[in-house]
């Protein structure tokens, strides 16, 4: 089979290349079609300091069909599903050509982290956050990196307490406000997520928005 030879070659090439910062590993020594790729978050982005893990499945028609890749590390990025890790990148779909390799695809993913395309989103909620409040988006993305993509021995993350509001980029103040009124925290976050409300900053008519949230919450808690 033609793909086996090529994958073996690619693996060997990647093993010898320590410059690229991309690591390829077989999930099982006897199976060349299921691999895991690792790379570092690019510096100067909210993903800096993280190590991202990508699951790679190689189709029978490889290299004539693209490898199937998805993130196993949770990541907050407009072109990557925050739930499933599915990736929206043209070269992994219709722009694939057989001269691309597993290594070059992983490098493309790394550069996707550097330059998101919010106008062609995979995760609409994240893309909306990116377009409406870039600083808030970056904060959340950095938080996810610290939480999910930090190397286990880093120690930095072991002690971090998971904050459910920061996870979705929601201002803790709002959640607190409704919590004080007696609404459960999880329901409040759920409603705010659904409504796409992250913070009251820059909101023109704050009382109106507050009322809308209240209405939704009352419906939710009936």
């Amino acid at each position, binding site marked *: 089979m033609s793909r086996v030879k090529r994958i073996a070659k690619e693996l060997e090439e990647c093993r010898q290349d320590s410059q690229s910062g991309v690591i390829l590993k077989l999930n099982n020594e006897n199976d060349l079609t299921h691999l895991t790729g690792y790379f570092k978050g690019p510096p100067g982005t909210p993903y800096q300091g993280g190590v991202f893990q990508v699951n790679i499945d190689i189709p029978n028609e490889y290299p004539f069909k693209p490898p199937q890749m998805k993130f196993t590390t949770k990541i907050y990025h407009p072109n990557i599903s925050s739930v499933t890790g599915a990736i929206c990148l043209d070269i992994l779909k219709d722009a694939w*050509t057989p001269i691309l390799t597993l290594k070059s695809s992983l490098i493309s993913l790394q550069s996707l982290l550097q330059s998101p395309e919010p106008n062609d989103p995979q995760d609409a909620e994240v893309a909306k956050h990116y377009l409406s409040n870039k600083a808030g988006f970056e904060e959340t993305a950095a938080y996810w990196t610290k939480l999910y993509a930090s190397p286990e021995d880093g120690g930095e993350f072991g002690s971090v307490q998971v904050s459910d509001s920061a996870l979705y980029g929601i201002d803790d103040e709002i959640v607190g406000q409704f919590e004080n009124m007696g609404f459960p925290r999880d329901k409040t976050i759920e409603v705010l997520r659904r409504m796409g409300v992250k913070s009251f900053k820059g909101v023109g008519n704050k009382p109106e928005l507050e009322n809308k949230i209240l209405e939704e919450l009352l419906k939710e808690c009936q």
Partner: protein
Amino acid sequence: MKVKILEWKSFATWHWDLATSADDSGYVEELCGICRVSFDGTCPNCKYPGDDCPIVLGSGCTHNFHLHCILKWLEQESSKGLCPMCRQIFTFKEPEQTSDVLINLKTLIDGHRVMRERFQQGNEQEFEAFGADQDLQMA
């Protein structure tokens, strides 16, 4: 001094004469971008290099591949008839003698051209239909 040769062994090496490897300083081994095997080796499905597993020279671009590899790529609809390296429409330099495989390659390339033309025509028709629709509204 007289030397008497008792025995001798001859060796010969060969490699494909590729336009892009015309470097006087020495021969650089080049890989087929599709299977990542040297051009002087074979594509993954062949046993013997050389005439059994020939090279195709791109004529639009200057990108070369094992004939069997580029055939397999162009068989994919997703290739859209483009060169894997530069995404230009792939055409090739025809050697003096043609073979069945080369005829296959030609058929594939023609097939992609027809598809492209049909696609283009389809777009134009849609555009015309849209224009006609507008006229109707204007009237």
